[in-house]
């Protein structure tokens, strides 16, 4: 297990943000390059299609820029909160059920073909199994294991206690394990 790449530390993000708010627009480009992949990865695992993920990520940034003056505290927490609300709105508006079978090859980052295919199948299964979790459980798993945040950071982001995050994580992983084992059992029978 490795620590997910965090190109910019939180204090660097805040410094760029401060500069951007003061009118240094080149700071925005650095922030954007840093944040877009993170927000996209989060949204990608929460919605059905790549197209929806791209559209919603775009919405998140528009919303963030529009409300930048109101931003306080952790910037990551703030932008993930916007992303989370956009995902909820998306499902509410369209009354879509999550059915994430549309994982496209172009979204895989590895160069090794076997690894790509192996990762691809697991990614599909994982994405599908995620939909069976509660909203909070999904958030914890994505923020912890996909985005690489620490438990206390997630607790601050979701406004919950560290104990609550640990409980959510335990239940989420237990459910995911049951679902994925069942899926693998089915495959072996075929």
């Amino acid at each position: 297990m490795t620590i997910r790449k965090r190109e910019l530390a939180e204090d660097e993000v805040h410094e760029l943000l401060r500069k951007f708010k003061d009118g240094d627009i080149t700071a925005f480009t650095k922030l954007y390059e840093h944040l877009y992949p993170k927000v996209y990865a989060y949204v990608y695992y929460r919605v059905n299609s790549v197209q929806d993920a791209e559209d919603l990520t775009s919405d998140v940034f528009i919303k963030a820029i529009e409300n930048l003056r109101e931003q306080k505290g952790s910037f990551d927490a703030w932008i993930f909160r916007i992303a989370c609300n956009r995902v909820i709105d998306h499902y509410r508006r369209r009354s879509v059920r999550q059915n994430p079978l549309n994982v496209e090859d172009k979204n895989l980052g590895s160069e090794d073909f076997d690894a790509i295919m192996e990762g691809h199948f697991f990614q599909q299964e994982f994405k599908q199994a995620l939909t069976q979790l509660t909203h909070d459980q999904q958030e914890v798993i994505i923020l912890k294991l996909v985005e690489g945040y620490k438990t206390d950071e997630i607790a601050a982001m979701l406004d919950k206690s560290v104990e609550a995050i640990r409980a959510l994580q335990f239940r989420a992983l237990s459910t995911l394990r049951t679902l994925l084992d069942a899926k693998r059992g089915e495959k072996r029978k075929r």
Partner: protein
Amino acid sequence: MERNIEALLDLCIEEMKRGKSLEACLANYPEHADQLAPLLRLAQEIDNLPLPVALPEAMSATLFNLGTRFGVSERKKGALALSRVLQARRSWAFGAVSFLLILLFGGATISTKSIPGDILYPAKLATEKVVFFFSFNAEEKVELRLRFSYERLKEMVQIFEQSGTLDKELLKSMLDEAKLALEHGNQLSGLQASLFQVKFNHANAYQKESLEHIRIAVPPSELKTVDRAIEVCTNRMQWMMKRMKEGRHVPWTRGCDMW
């Protein structure tokens, strides 16, 4: 007890993230190893998944949306009203010209997917010219030039995949359109200029990457051309990065080019 196992699971995940092996973690808590092991293996599997990669086109599209929003919000009311009139004029002109082209081409749909050699390709180019003619500000012109550059790249790749030949005209057009985008970018200022810089860099990186893929399969006689084009993209990226580091906007200078 249950509360305990939740904390232990979290502790093990954090330790594994710091480089400790799964076995070493389990060895610390042998009484819970059976319960922890499958959950930690799953956590490890999820953590090892490749991150979904955001496509450069999607990043550029978002930047354009941001630029448009900001541009509109920064304009004065009078300018907005004028913009609406111009937008209407452009839509009308585009509709009229498209209608004429449809008549000319026997009612067939003007295909945006056509490539050189297709009967509809001249119509595609004509439509591009008309749309560009009716664009009224640098922001729109920049966007269109980048879009045309992307179109030429798409066409070139499609032809290459179909016939294995490199269309040098399309390659040149792709680079020329990007160069023209730079020239229009010179007129942008403030946030618009910064957004353009990022967007141009994404487009350029994407072109370079595509050319590098083509280079693997291109006949030896075409290698020099492809290498030269890759060099142009590299120079442009370096030049733009330098400008961005200096915190300057895009003024077009002779130092940048090229083909």
